[in-house]
C-alpha cells in the first residue's frame, strides 16, 4: 500500500495521462503551499513536477480503496472521515473543498476529468481479487507453475474433450459483468446430481466454453429452460437415444452478439453459436455431473452434444419467428430449447410450388426414427431461404405450412403394423385400418435459417419420448 491516508486535509488522485490533471497541476501547487495536501499519482510518480512530494500509487491500492472513478479527484478528510469529494476540474467545488477563493482564474470554470486507471477493464478485476472483494464462492484450485493448466483441466474431468479457457477469477468476474443478477442466485437444480446452478457456477462454465460476457444472458436463459420440469433434462441426458438440448435463439440479442443465422448456421465457425451451446453442455457435465457412459447412457449420441445452438434468420423471413409463435412479444429476445439430434437433410431442387415442396418435406419427416414409427418423435424443421421463398411467393404463412404438413403426415396404419413391408419394426396389429399421424399435435416446430443459395432444408429429430410424458420444448425470454 502506498502509505496511510491522512486523517485531516486534502487528498488528490491524478495521472499524467489526463489533460485535465495536467491543466490542474498548478492549482495543486497552490494547495500544497497552503499545506495539508497529499497527492497520489496513478501512472507517473514524477507527476505533477510542481509538487515536492507525491505518493506513488501505481499499484492503485489507494485509488481502489478510495473508489476513485475519475481523475483528478479531490477529497477532504476530517478526523479520518471523508467529508467532501469532487472530480474533474470544477472551480467552485475545488474552492469549496479547499476553502481558498480565486483558484485557477485563468482556467475554464469546469472541465471533465478522465477515467481513473483503477477502474479500467481488467485492472478493476485484479484489484478486487487482491483485496478479496470478488464475492465469488467457488473453490480456488491452485495450478502449480510447472503444471500445464490445460492438462490440469482435462485431468480433473472438466472438459467435453476439447481444450477449455481457464476459468481464472478475472475471467469469471468479467463474465459475471454480463448480467445484473446476483452471482449466488440459483436458477434450478441440474441433473443428474440435482446440484444448484448458481449464476456464478454457470459463469465459470461459460468462461471455459469460450463465451464473451455479452453471451451470458443467453446461456442463463438456456440453462433455465432446460431445468424446467417439462423439459425433463434428466431423461434427455440419461436416455440411450441420440438427443441433447438444441438451442434456437430469437430476437435482437442475435445481432447484438453476432450470432450466425445464415450460411452454415448449424455448422462451425461462429463464436457465439458455438460457445453458448457448449456452455450449456458444460453446465450439465460439471455442475450436474452428467457424463457419457455414466448417467449419460447414449448409444451413439450426436455431434451436437458438443454444442448445438443457432439463431433464426428473422430478417430474411416472412414468417413470425419461433419465439413469437410460442408467445414471446416481438422485439424481445428469447431461447427455445428442444431435445433433438443430428440433422437429416431434405434435398429438393425441383419443387417450384408449395404443394410439391410440402409433400417433399412430409416425405422426409415421415422417415424420422423409422418409417414404421408413428406417432413418433417431435421435430424441428429448419427451412432454408430458397425453400422459404417458394412458400412466401405463393402466399403460404407458417400456419398454412404447419397445417399442410400435419395433413400430409397422416399415415395409413396398415403400413405401420410390425412385420409389414418386410420389417419387423412397427406397431400393434390394431393399427390396421386406422390412420395415424407421424406427429402429436404441436409436435412440429418450424424455423428459418441458412445461406441464400441451396435448396437444402433440414430436420432435427427429437426424442421418442416427446410430448408431456417426455420432453416438451421450452421457450424462455432473456432477462434484461
Amino acid at each position, binding site marked *: 500500500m502506498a502509505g496511510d491516508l491522512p486523517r485531516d486535509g486534502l487528498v488528490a488522485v491524478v495521472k499524467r495521462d489526463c489533460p485535465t490533471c495536467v491543466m490542474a497541476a498548478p492549482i495543486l501547487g497552490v494547495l500544497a503551499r497552503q499545506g495539508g495536501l497529499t497527492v497520489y499519482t496513478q501512472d507517473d510518480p514524477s507527476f505533477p513536477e510542481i509538487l515536492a512530494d507525491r505518493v506513488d500509487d501505481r499499484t492503485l491500492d489507494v485509488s481502489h480503496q478510495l473508489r476513485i472513478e475519475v481523475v483528478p479527484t479531490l477529497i477532504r478528510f476530517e478526523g479520518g472521515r471523508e467529508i467532501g469529494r469532487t472530480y474533474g476540474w470544477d472551480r467552485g467545488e475545488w474552492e469549496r473543498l479547499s476553502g481558498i477563493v480565486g483558484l485557477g482564474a485563468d482556467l475554464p470554470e469546469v472541465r471533465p476529468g478522465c477515467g481513473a486507471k483503477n477502474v479500467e477493464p481488467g485492472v478493476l478485476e485484479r484489484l478486487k481479487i487482491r483485496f478479496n472483494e470478488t464475492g465469488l464462492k467457488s*473453490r480456488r484450485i491452485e*495450478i502449480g507453475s510447472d503444471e500445464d493448466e490445460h492438462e490440469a483441466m482435462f485431468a480433473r474431468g472438466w472438459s467435453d474433450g476439447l481444450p477449455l479457457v*481457464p476459468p481464472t*477469477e478475472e475471467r*469469471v468476474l468479467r463474465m459475471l459483468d454480463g448480467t445484473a443478477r446476483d452471482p449466488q442466485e440459483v436458477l434450478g437444480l441440474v441433473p443428474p446430481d440435482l*446440484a444448484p446452478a448458481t449464476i456464478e*457456477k454457470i459463469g465459470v462454465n461459460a468462461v471455459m466454453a469460450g463465451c464473451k460476457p455479452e453471451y451470458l444472458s443467453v446461456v442463463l436463459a438456456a440453462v433455465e429452460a432446460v431445468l424446467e420440469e417439462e423439459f425433463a433434462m434428466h431423461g434427455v441426458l440419461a436416455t440411450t437415444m441420440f438427443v441433447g438440448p438444441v438451442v434456437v435463439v430469437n430476437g435482437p440479442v442475435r445481432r447484438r452478439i453476432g450470432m450466425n443465422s445464415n450460411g452454415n448456421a448449424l455448422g462451425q465457425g461462429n463464436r457465439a453459436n458455438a460457445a453458448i451451446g457448449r456452455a450449456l453442455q458444460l453446465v450439465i457435465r460439471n455442475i450436474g*455431473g452428467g457424463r457419457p457412459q455414466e448417467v449419460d447412457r447414449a448409444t451413439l449420441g450426436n455431434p451436437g452434444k458438443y454444442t448445438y445452438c443457432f439463431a433464426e434468420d428473422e430478417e430474411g423471413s416472412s414468417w413470425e419467428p419461433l419465439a413469437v409463435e410460442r408467445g414471446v412479444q416481438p422485439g424481445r429476445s428469447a431461447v427455445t430449447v428442444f431435445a433433438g439430434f443430428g440433422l437429416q437433410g431434405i434435398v429438393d431442387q425441383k419443387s417450384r410450388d408449395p404443394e410439391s415442396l410440402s409433400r417433399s418435406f412430409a416425405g422426409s419427416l415421415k422417415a424420422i426414427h423409422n418409417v414404421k414409427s408413428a406417432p413418433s418423435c417431435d421435430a424441428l424443421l429448419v427451412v432454408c431461404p430458397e425453400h422459404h421463398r417458394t412458400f412466401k411467393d405463393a402466399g403460404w404463412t407458417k400456419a398454412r405450412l404447419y397445417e399442410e404438413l400435419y395433413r400430409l403426415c397422416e399415415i395409413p396404419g396398415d403400413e405401420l403394423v410390425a412385420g409389414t413391408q418386410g420389417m419387423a419394426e412397427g406397431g400393434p396389429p390394431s393399427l390396421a385400418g386406422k390412420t395415424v399421424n407421424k406427429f402429436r399435435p404441436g409436435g412440429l416446430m418450424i424455423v428459418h435459417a441458412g445461406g441464400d443459395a441451396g435448396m437444402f432444408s433440414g430436420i432435427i429429430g427429437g426424442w421418442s419420448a416427446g410430448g408431456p410424458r417426455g420432453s416438451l420444448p421450452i421457450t424462455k425470454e432473456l432477462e434484461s
Partner: protein
Amino acid sequence: MTVLLDPTSERSPTIRPRLPRPEHLDGLTIGILDIAKPRGDVFLHRLGERLAERGIAVRHYAKPTNTRVAPLPLRQQIAAEVDLVVEGLSD
C-alpha cells in the same frame, strides 16, 4: 501459479455400502416397479406370478413415465411397504 475456479458442484460423493442381500426370501415382501418401458409390464407381471407361486408377498408399483425419476411419494411408499425391489430398467 494460476488460480482457477472450480466449475463443478464441489460435492464429495458419499460412498454408501449396499445393504446385504437377504439369505432367503421367506417372510419378505417384494416390490415390483414397472418404470413404464414397453413390455416391461408383461415381464414384471410374469415375474410377480412366479414369486407369488413360491408364497412370497408381492406388491406392484408403476412410474408414470420412464423419462423422469420416480416421484418422491412413490419412492417413499415403496421404501415403507417392501423389503426388496425388482425394477425393469429397459425394454
